[in-house]
């Protein structure tokens, strides 16, 4: 297989584009397509301050690398979720990468900021007796919003890729989660003064394409999986979608883009919601008490109750 640009030996093949590139031209292709996504979806401009949520994983570090090379004003945000050694190692990867690009990294530790008695995501899920991923997702959304607002960022960028987005779409369609479907988008405009615009510049790249960029660039990312992700439904959906993709190149992209272009506008119109402010923390919510406060309050009560019994 030969590079589409220079006819040299190809390193990365993209069957859905009927194209392949050598390593240097793949880096050019990747960056130019991220820029195209940013511009075509009006994600942000060069004058805006962008907070990049980083986990130490390939997608978020790759995104930060691309945005830095495209000359955007970025700061990283690492949320220490208190998931044992995994959090320690992913924080180290994030800090090392920030150092390597001379970037600023904000670190927020949920145990210090919200939990009590060193309660992180693992303890939260045990206290609530629910799967860690749901509490983790809600916590990450809350913290990223809060930090972006407190530090005056215009935009919050995440490393969600095509596989993440199609797996989420599949999960939401399987359970007809109309509210979530209405809000699934590569750009979520701010609908409240305390909410930054949320963007996903990698939403058109598969995980394999994202990993290829990171490997070619020599970025040191955390390879190990979050211990809580074992058995996560998102992985099952990704496997199913990749089985289809292997037989029918372009299926994932067609699924997501078809939804965004044709189905989402109809659902969005029917699911318009009013935002209020949480009576406890002041963050935007559709209820009196926001989902984050309800969840952490419940976990703290359950933990105190359990300790009382012992």
């Amino acid at each position, binding site marked *: *297989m030969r590079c589409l640009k220079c006819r040299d030996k190809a390193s*990365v093949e993209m069957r859905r584009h009927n194209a392949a590139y050598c*390593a240097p031209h793949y880096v050019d292709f990747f960056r130019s397509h991220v820029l195209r996504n940013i511009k075509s979806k009006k994600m942000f401009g060069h004058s805006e301050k962008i907070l990049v949520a980083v986990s130490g994983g390939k997608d978020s570090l790759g995104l930060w690398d691309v945005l830095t090379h495209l000359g955007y004003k970025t700061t990283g945000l690492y949320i220490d979720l208190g998931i044992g050694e995994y959090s320690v190692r992913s924080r180290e990867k994030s800090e090392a990468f920030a150092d390597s690009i001379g970037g600023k990294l904000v670190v927020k530790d949920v145990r210090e900021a919200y939990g009590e008695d060193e309660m992180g995501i693992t303890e939260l899920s045990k206290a609530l007796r629910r799967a860690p991923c749901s509490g983790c997702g809600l916590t990450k959304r809350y913290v990223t919003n809060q930090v972006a607002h407190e530090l005056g960022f215009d935009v919050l960028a995440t490393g969600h890729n095509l596989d993440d987005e199609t797996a989420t779409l599949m999960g939401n369609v399987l359970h007809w989660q109309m509210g979530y479907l209405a809000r699934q988008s590569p750009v979520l405009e701010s609908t409240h003064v305390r909410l930054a615009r949320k963007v996903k510049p990698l939403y058109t790249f598969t995980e394999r394409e994202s*990993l290829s960029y990171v490997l*070619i660039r020599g970025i040191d990312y955390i390879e190990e999986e*979050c211990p809580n992700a074992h058995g996560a439904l998102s992985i099952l959906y990704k496997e199913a979608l990749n089985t289809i993709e292997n037989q029918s190149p372009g299926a994932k992209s067609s699924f997501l883009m078809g939804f965004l272009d044709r189905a989402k506008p109809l659902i969005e119109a029917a699911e318009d919601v009013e935002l209020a402010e949480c009576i406890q923390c002041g963050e935007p919510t559709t209820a009196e008490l926001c989902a984050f406060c309800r969840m952490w309050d419940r976990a703290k009560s359950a933990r105190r109750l359990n300790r009382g019994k012992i």
Partner: protein
Amino acid sequence: MRVVLRNPRRREIQIAGNRQVLAILEELGLNPETVVVVQGGALLTRDAYVADDSSIEVISAISGGM
């Protein structure tokens, strides 16, 4: 050839003969959409040939939980 699987836990296996990347992945039961194959720091496409006396790494691209 020596094949190092990083999935993400590392394990090593041996496969005999000169083989194409796609054939190696099929033998390992891996979907080519979900991995990147690397040889000496260079990424290989599915049609590339790997010599019997060489070594490759197969790195998982799929991450879970969101």
